């Protein structure tokens, strides 16, 4: 009996050290880990995840010619050749001086190579193409480019992230760094890692971009949301992707 107790005691010591070892490791959590089991299953099942409808749509659009050049995405990039691409955006294109996000990259390709009108931000077409590209990076670690030109934008993004805004006088950091894991109106505050974008949010009943999600938060703190094409969003994205570096992408994510 006594020896059994000693063994039990030892086991709990091991358990404690194991917990400590885990504690010192990565504490970052994707929003996926904080949502209910039913929603996790919905995201994991490719025939139940509504985001996959848009991936399917994006795949169809990929081979549809557009613009004056009458070229389809697939004419330059074979279907399924976009692996890991979404994991490294936003990035600064070769001859540019500002970072663009994945949607910006798709529109740049449209205007420069397809010679077509850029797709409207948050339109079904653009979201579907982004979802199709992002889906191909599923499971890949987020890997922001080492481009030194991104530095100032990352700092700007971090500055916005920590800046108090709006009538509630809150910054992103107050909720998502200082109080992440606690409850806000019965909902667990996530750490705000952009792991699943574009996401299918049940509240939206539609697919939406990270920009749309950021706007939601800005409206929530009663701040004036930036215009959809504002550079502030891209700077925030640059910062958030660096913050989530190494975390696996899970696009298209499902969120409540």
């Amino acid at each position, binding site marked *: 009996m006594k020896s059994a107790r000693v063994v039990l005691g030892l086991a709990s010591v091991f358990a404690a050290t194991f917990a400590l070892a885990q504690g010192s490791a990565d504490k970052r959590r994707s929003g996926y880990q904080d949502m209910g089991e039913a929603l996790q299953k919905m995201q994991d*099942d*490719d*025939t*139940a995840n*509504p985001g*996959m*409808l*848009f991936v*399917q*749509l994006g795949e*169809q659009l990929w081979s549809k010619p557009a613009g004056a050049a009458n070229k389809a995405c697939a004419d330059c990039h074979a279907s399924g050749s976009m692996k890991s691409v979404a994991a490294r955006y936003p990035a600064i294109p070769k001859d540019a001086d500002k970072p663009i996000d994945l949607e910006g990259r798709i529109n740049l390709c449209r205007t420069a190579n397809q010679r077509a009108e850029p797709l409207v931000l948050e339109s079904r077409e653009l979201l579907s193409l982004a979802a199709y590209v992002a889906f191909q990076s599923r499971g890949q670690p987020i890997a922001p480019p080492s481009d030194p030109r991104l530095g100032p934008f990352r700092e700007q993004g971090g500055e916005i992230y920590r800046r108090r805004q709006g009538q509630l006088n809150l910054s992103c950091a107050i909720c998502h760094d200082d109080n992440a894991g606690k409850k806000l109106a019965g909902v667990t505050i996530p750490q705000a890692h952009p792991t699943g974008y574009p996401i299918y949010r*049940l509240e939206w*009943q*539609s697919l939406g971009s990270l920009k749309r999600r950021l706007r939601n938060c800005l409206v929530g703190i009663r701040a004036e949301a930036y215009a959809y094409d504002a550079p502030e969003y891209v700077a925030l994205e640059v910062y958030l992707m660096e913050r989530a570096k190494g975390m696996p992408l899970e696009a298209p994510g499902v969120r409540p």
Partner: protein
Amino acid sequence: MTNVLVNAPKTAKPGEIVEIKALILHPMETGFRPGTNGRIIPRNIIEHFVATWNGTEIFRMEMSPAIAANPFVSFFAVATESGTIGLRWTGDEGFLVEEQVAIAVG
């Protein structure tokens, strides 16, 4: 461009209960919401969903404006014979989508 995702087993034993899951892209506009111009956006929903097994109806569902966009339907059927499961969605504005999946029973 039809946009449907169907999840049904490809094979089943005779008498086995199989689950059939279907997801479809549709806005399910309720007809109660005002648009940005203040006018009511006309109702645009899927009204009926019907499933058949080799032509025989096995499941029918009537949908209402309270159902969310991109409706997901899951139902069960007893596998009796090999053949085709047909799924058919009909609704406002002449909406009609048909999808078929094959199933081998034996």
